[in-house]
């Protein structure tokens, strides 16, 4: 119900009094303080707990997730679309039989040499009504970076909330991971998106023939409900995922996109790679011409001193050789193992909090991330800590920025990144243009990419080129 104060003719001056009164009334709800704790070594565990373990969402977010889950229904095998050309798309799975060495921009390259087509997750919240939490829904957008126009939009299958997307090197094949259900019953379903420009159906989405995947123990679900790591091989024929069992242990699996059959898997019960041993979701990248995977993990933070925290940033390579099973720790080769950290909010950690996840180049030689206001590329070698070329500082004014690397080219010298001004509990898009700000970072320059009108900000894993 709208208030009479919505009357635009009213002067804003009444707001000063009402704001003061509202703040006094709200502040007055606190009538006592908890006991002071000055025990040696004490740190405000509460303030850190959301960082070290579970994430503290605003209280309305939990009901949002719950509401989404309640409405979850079984996922149909056929999908979905609201494509410009309309029409029902058959559920056939298209596989592009190109070699793993397919260059990143196989055809119709986009601006600045980046792939032309992208797949992005867009979010929508229903307007909250009195006493009712808003309901989160997601949909997919296939876009053309060259024309800035959308190619297709896909509504989600019933009950699915899209979490992560990934792209093959052919600029035509994508996969989206979506969560169904919540808590202990939550599972992940996979969907393939094929882009066929100029055809009567410029894009189609089909459910992949992969059995529902696990998303953890149903308790420590924040990590995986935020993200489900997926990586499509350059050829688009294999899909790697990082799955967490009901006990929180990690498994990296490789599936055939065409058949859904399991081709390779590595498991571990190492606590540092369990849900509770990680502070952020791991990421997967295909390297070495599609013959290996790079698994990047960021361990749970360890307190160091009064206000400083450190965590181990590790990249392991796993040879994809079809042996079907293996131990993730024993079989993996460590490419990078660096302790990162500093005070929370520091901008020099390159891999902590605001800076995760990184982008591993397909040649397996570089590791690119953000320092919060700049980009740094590291050589991917054990113990390497020196900064490499390609540092670009996007800081403007005195605003705080949040920057994320979204994509790296084969050699890591060209990145796509998003950035925005951090305003209280959100990250705004470019405050000057009010547009989503996603730039190509190359040779020390940042060049904005264009997106359709109404395109929302995207997060790492929420867009793929």
């Amino acid at each position, binding site marked *: 119900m709208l208030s009479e104060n919505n009357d635009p003719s009213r002067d804003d001056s009444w707001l000063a009094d*009402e704001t003061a009164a509202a703040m006094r009334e*709200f*502040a007055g709800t606190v009538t006592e*303080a908890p006991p002071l704790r000055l025990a040696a070594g004490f740190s405000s565990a509460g303030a850190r707990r959301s960082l070290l373990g579970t994430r*503290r969402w605003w209280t309305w977010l939990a009901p949002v997730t719950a509401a989404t889950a309640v409405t979850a229904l079984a996922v149909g095998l056929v999908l979905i679309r609201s494509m410009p050309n309309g029409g029902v798309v058959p559920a056939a799975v298209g596989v592009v039989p190109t070699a793993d060495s397919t260059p990143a921009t196989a055809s119709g390259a986009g601006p600045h040499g980046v792939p032309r087509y992208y797949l992005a997750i867009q979010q929508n919240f229903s307007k909250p009504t009195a006493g009712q939490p808003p309901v989160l829904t997601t949909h997919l957008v296939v876009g053309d970076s060259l024309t800035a126009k959308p190619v297709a939009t896909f509504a989600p299958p019933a009950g699915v909330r899209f979490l992560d997307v990934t792209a093959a090197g052919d600029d035509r094949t994508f996969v989206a991971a979506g969560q169904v259900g919540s808590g202990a019953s939550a599972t992940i379903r996979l969907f393939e998106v094929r882009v066929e420009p100029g055809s009567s159906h410029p894009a189609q989405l089909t459910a992949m023939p992969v059995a529902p995947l696990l998303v953890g123990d149903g308790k420590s679900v924040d990590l995986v409900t935020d993200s489900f790591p997926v990586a499509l091989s350059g050829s688009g024929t294999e899909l790697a995922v990082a799955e967490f069992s009901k006990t929180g242990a990690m498994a990296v699996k490789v599936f055939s996109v065409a058949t859904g059959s399991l081709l390779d898997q590595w498991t571990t019960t190492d606590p540092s790679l369990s849900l509770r041993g990680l502070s952020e979701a791991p990421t997967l990248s295909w390297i070495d011409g599609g013959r290996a995977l790079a698994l990047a993990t960021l361990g749970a933070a360890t307190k160091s001193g009064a206000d400083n925290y450190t965590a181990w940033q590790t990249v392991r390579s796993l040879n994809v050789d079809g042996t079907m099973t293996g131990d993730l720790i024993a079989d993996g080769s460590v490419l990078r193992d660096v302790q990162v950290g500093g005070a929370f909010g520091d901008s020099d950690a390159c891999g902590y909090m605001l800076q995760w996840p990184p982008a591993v180049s397909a040649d397996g030689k570089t590791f690119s991330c953000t320092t919060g206001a700049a980009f740094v590329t590291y050589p991917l070698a054990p113990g390497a800590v020196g900064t490499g070329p390609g540092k670009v500082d996007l800081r403007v004014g005195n605003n705080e920025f949040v920057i994320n690397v979204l994509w790296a080219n084969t050699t890591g010298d060209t990145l796509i990144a998003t950035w925005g001004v951090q305003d*209280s509990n959100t990250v705004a898009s470019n405050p000057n243009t009010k547009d989503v700000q996603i730039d190509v970072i190359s040779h020390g320059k940042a060049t904005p990419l264009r997106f359709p009108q109404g395109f929302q900000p995207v997060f790492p894993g929420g867009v793929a080129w």
Partner: protein
Amino acid sequence: MDTVDTDSYAPGRRHGPPGGDAAHAVTALYQAHALGMIRIALLMLGERGAAEDVVQDAFLGMYRRWQRINEPQKAEAYLRSAVFNGCRDALRRQSRRNRRDWVAAVDLGEPPSAEAVALMSEDRRRILAGLRLLPVRQREALVCRFYLELSEEETARVMNVSRGTVKSTTSRAVAALGRMFREGQC
């Protein structure tokens, strides 16, 4: 009213573990100021648990640095600065966690502590919801000016900006609140 540099260092003072005097002094300060500080943090963060955490951190920081604080008589100002700094850090971390929900942050008008505001008038509930959508510095300005009733000069010291910036920030904040209110965004 003055603020104290939270990193201030007094070369002539002893630098060692805080002792019983510090504990007594900080405990006394806590009894005198904790409630007020929690209320400030609540207005900044919108969640009581997080507000209490920030305030605990502020007092703990004071305790640890007690022997390095130049002017203990400015403890209240020190604490207030520490609380605002702590709130900024908490919001920064919150931003990281919520970045997947940018749309929500833009569209949502429901303050998180729904129970606490259940009995408020519709207008005030909406104002609090709008407050949560303001940039953190604008929120700080409103808390200082309208809740703490600090002067522009005092607010400038707390926020470590010029008086003119306080004026413009406050003005923008009120304008933004009014716009959100009229457009039904909060």
